[in-house]
């Protein structure tokens, strides 16, 4: 009996590991920046280059930082959702225009709609590196104290908005 049970048991253990492996996404690299203060930055606005947004300007409110670029194809997928989210007025969305050109970026926003309270320009991607950006689009939820609470890698979906992002924002807004 044992001679059959042992291989069967070994097979079940192996199959269980492989099954769990199937559900994991190797592209989702957990960010070490979660629950850490957002990196310090000072970047020029996209539309009004003479203005500067600094990382401390948004202290006291919950906000989203969406990393986008006009060359990024999947940014187009999530864009209508961001426009809708901005219209709902739940949370201000700030855009980090990542390694892009100013004119094309502005054209892109006129064409697909501008959900951003402000877009800031990270032309050489240095601030992107500080945020640990490696695949555009990425979206960060930052709380009132300036701490990163969540990172969405890849496009925002209806599912991720309803299940994770919006509930977390509402919860964070309740905090002092």
């Amino acid at each position, binding site marked *: 009996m044992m001679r059959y049970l042992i291989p069967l048991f070994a097979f079940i253990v192996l199959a269980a590991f492989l099954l769990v492996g199937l559900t994991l996404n190797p592209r989702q690299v*957990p960010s*070490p920046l979660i629950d850490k203060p957002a990196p310090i930055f000072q970047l020029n606005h996209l539309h009004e280059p003479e203005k500067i947004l600094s990382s401390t300007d948004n202290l006291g409110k919950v906000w989203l930082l969406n990393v986008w670029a006009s060359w990024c194809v999947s940014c187009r997928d999530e864009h209508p959702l961001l426009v809708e989210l901005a219209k709902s007025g739940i949370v201000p969305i700030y855009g980090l225009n990542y390694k892009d050109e100013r004119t094309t970026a502005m054209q892109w926003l006129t064409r697909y709609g501008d959900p951003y309270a402000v877009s800031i320009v990270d032309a050489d991607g240095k601030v992107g590196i500080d945020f640990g950006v490696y695949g555009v689009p990425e979206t960060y939820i930052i709380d009132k104290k300036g701490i990163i609470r969540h990172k969405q890698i890849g496009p925002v979906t209806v599912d991720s908005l309803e299940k994770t992002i919006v509930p977390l924002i509402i919860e964070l807004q309740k905090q002092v």
Partner: protein
Amino acid sequence: MFKDNCFPCLKVPQLNRIKVWLLFAFLILIIAPTLSWSKEAVPVAEDPEIEKRMLALTMDLRCLVCQNESIADSRADFSNDMRREIRQKIKENKSDEEIIQFLVDRYGDFVLYNPPVKPTTILLWFGPILLFMIGFVSLLTYLKRRREQIVEIPLSEAEQKKAEVLLGEKKR
């Protein structure tokens, strides 16, 4: 065929000469792209010393976009940025540890091909040894049990004689 003592003979008939030219053109067509590629691969860095240190460092760092390539090997935009960043840090006289910490702070242990021993990586580090031990112990117990199972049955007298006859026959 060979009128003079040349080899290879240069007196090729007209038709063959065309063939030779065609072959030559064909060869150029094949070789040309590789030539232009090798031009592209010329190292961009100014300082070979910095480049050497940067390469040694990025060899053990994972490109997060391609995941199965190191930052040194990858042509992804991400790796280009990382190499630029690391060159910059080397120029600023940062130590290797500081540079690696800079990347780990932003991208986590996943960038390291050589992950640190931590509670979450214990299985990764010692799993193979554990599996080997399990295999070794089960092999030993199996061998021991098998030795116990084999019982020597002495030959009966009739069998002994029969064997001797058979062996004796062979000798003859």
